[in-house]
């Protein structure tokens, strides 16, 4: 039994579940696939699909399981947000990340609501007691792009951690809990939830291009308006929505004078290459900032890595 997220719309992600089912069948594996996607007509459809796979479980079992899953996802996102605020200021390098890892392990083991709440409370307390430097981080960067690349540290070379440990404050734009709320739950009742993103992106991109293409543009505009120091876009190799966004971003970057770095990730992306680009981008932003604040702009640079 394989559970996979699906999708409707121009992004080809929705097709992956079907392709993988076919591949596994050709290889002789008989596995069931449950594709999680917003039902087109009625929420009952989703339940019927799940029920056909787990005939012995009742609707209330499902609701309890969903509740637990939701609590875990929400707890995860809260700790990640907090960790991103604390990491650039930590005095002992790596402490925030190790607390975060500990929390992940505990959360994974928790099976009861009370346990999840306790784990979350404890992790927040531990993170808040990390000794911090007194000054604010000198750079603020917004992370935009395709959801999986942005969410999964194994794929994006732990970019939030890397940047945080360079002393940069990172704002991630996509969290799993937001995605579930917006894409799975609210799309059933269809409010104009994404109207604000459409408005923000409108001067540069009018159409929904699938995936997170529109959001990427909108968040870059947002970062420019809110005077962020830079934007990093993460895109999987050959991802159509992000490629559309990538063509639009230079204009946004120029008009709102916000530097943008696009990183395309595929299985060959060596860590060294990504690291080089990140370091160079951070150097660029620091030089720019120093110049803007009237400082000495000669080739003196702060070394960001030891």
């Amino acid at each position, binding site marked *: 039994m394989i559970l996979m997220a699906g999708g409707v719309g121009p992004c080809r992600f929705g097709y992956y579940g079907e392709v993988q089912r076919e591949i596994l069948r050709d290889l002789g594996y008989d596995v069931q696939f449950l594709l999680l996607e917003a039902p087109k007509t009625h929420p009952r459809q989703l339940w019927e699909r799940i029920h056909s796979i787990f005939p012995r479980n009742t609707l209330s079992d499902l609701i309890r399981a969903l509740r637990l899953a939701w609590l875990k996802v929400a707890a995860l996102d809260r700790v990640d947000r907090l960790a991103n605020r604390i990491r650039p200021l930590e005095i002992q390098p790596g402490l925030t990340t190790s607390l975060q890892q500990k929390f992940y392990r505990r959360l994974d083991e928790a099976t009861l609501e009370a346990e999840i709440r306790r784990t979350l409370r404890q992790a927040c307390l531990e993170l808040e007691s990390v000794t911090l430097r007194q000054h604010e981080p000198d750079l603020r960067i917004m992370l935009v792009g395709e959801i999986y690349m942005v969410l999964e540290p194994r794929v994006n070379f732990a970019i939030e951690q890397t940047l945080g440990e360079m002393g940069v404050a990172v704002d991630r734009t996509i969290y799993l809990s937001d995605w579930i709320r917006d894409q799975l739950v609210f799309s059933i009742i269809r409010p104009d939830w994404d109207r604000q993103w459409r408005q923000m992106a409108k001067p540069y991109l009018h159409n929904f291009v699938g995936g997170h293409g529109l959001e990427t543009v909108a968040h870059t505009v947002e970062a420019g308006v809110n005077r962020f120091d830079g934007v990093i876009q993460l895109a999987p190799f050959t991802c159509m929505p992000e490629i559309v966004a990538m063509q639009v971003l*230079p204009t946004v970057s120029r008009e709102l004078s916000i530097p943008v770095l696009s990183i395309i990730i595929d299985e060959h992306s060596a860590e060294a290459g990504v690291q080089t680009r990140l370091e*160079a981008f951070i150097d660029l932003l620091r030089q720019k900032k120093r*110049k803007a604040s009237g400082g000495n702009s000669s080739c003196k640079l702060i070394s960001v890595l030891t």
Partner: protein
Amino acid sequence: MQAYLGIDVGSVSTNLVLLNQRGELLRKLYLRSQGNPVGSVQEGLSRLGSEFPDLTIAGVGTTGSGRQLIGKMVGADLIKNEITAHAVACLNLEPTVQTIIEIGGQDSKLILIRDGVVYDFAMNTVCAAGTGSFLDQQAARLSIGIEELGMRAAQGRHPVRIAGRCAVFAESDMIHKQQMGHKLEDILAGLCRALVRNFLGNLGKGKELKAPVIFQGGVAANLGIRQAFEEALNCPLVIPEHFDVMGAVGAALLARDEMLACKSSSKFKGLKLLMEPVATQSFDCEGCSNQCEVVEMRQSGLLVACIGDKCGKWSQRANSRSQEPETQVG
């Protein structure tokens, strides 16, 4: 003699430079890495050591794709990415530069400078078409020297059309043109144009390339590519005297600034110590689900450095040991 050492460990070449206090170049070495960065750095250091018996190193900077490994090995005061290093070297030479084109063994870079700071940059992503390695390969296939390839390309009067988007297709295009009976000069000139087109298309993408333009990296030696760039950009290129080692120059300049700023003594381990054989070994850490590939570097049996772990478990261990050399014995 006091000098600052810059080491650029690239995919194809390992470059070492010595600069004096004023940032002037005393000596440069351009060595082929041949898949053995540690060995080629050792070779370079031993040559510097025998040429300058009274050499004292006041600061060391490393750059290039092997910067972490070599930085740990030599005890670098500064480890810097190659984009910043190249930009610093160029700005030191020509403060008004606005565009830097750098083509090395497997990387090509475009760095845009406005008002003396890096304003934008691009590096080739998944494909190494159009870089030094590919030109090397073609020269070998045609059994001519790499220097000759550039010279003959510059003599082509009627460049043929070659698809430069992909190294494999470019090669089959070239073979096809050869079989059609085109002159080698024209084919090579066409190849250079295609590679320049590829560079400007992939890295230049809508960016404004203003003069003065500096062209550096190993490929800047190639006359054909130079000519094709000048045609495409419609402006003369500035080729620095030491175009092939600019990354190392930048690293040395940055190390000098760092040492002058923090006023401490260099962490350089000394030429003698570095001559001892180095053994590297890699293993998968089983500590967590990350399963990092960790590289361990040992010199005469002692652990010198560990790199590659995400959590710092191994690299910290190596650091704490190298700071207390007494405890290493035994």
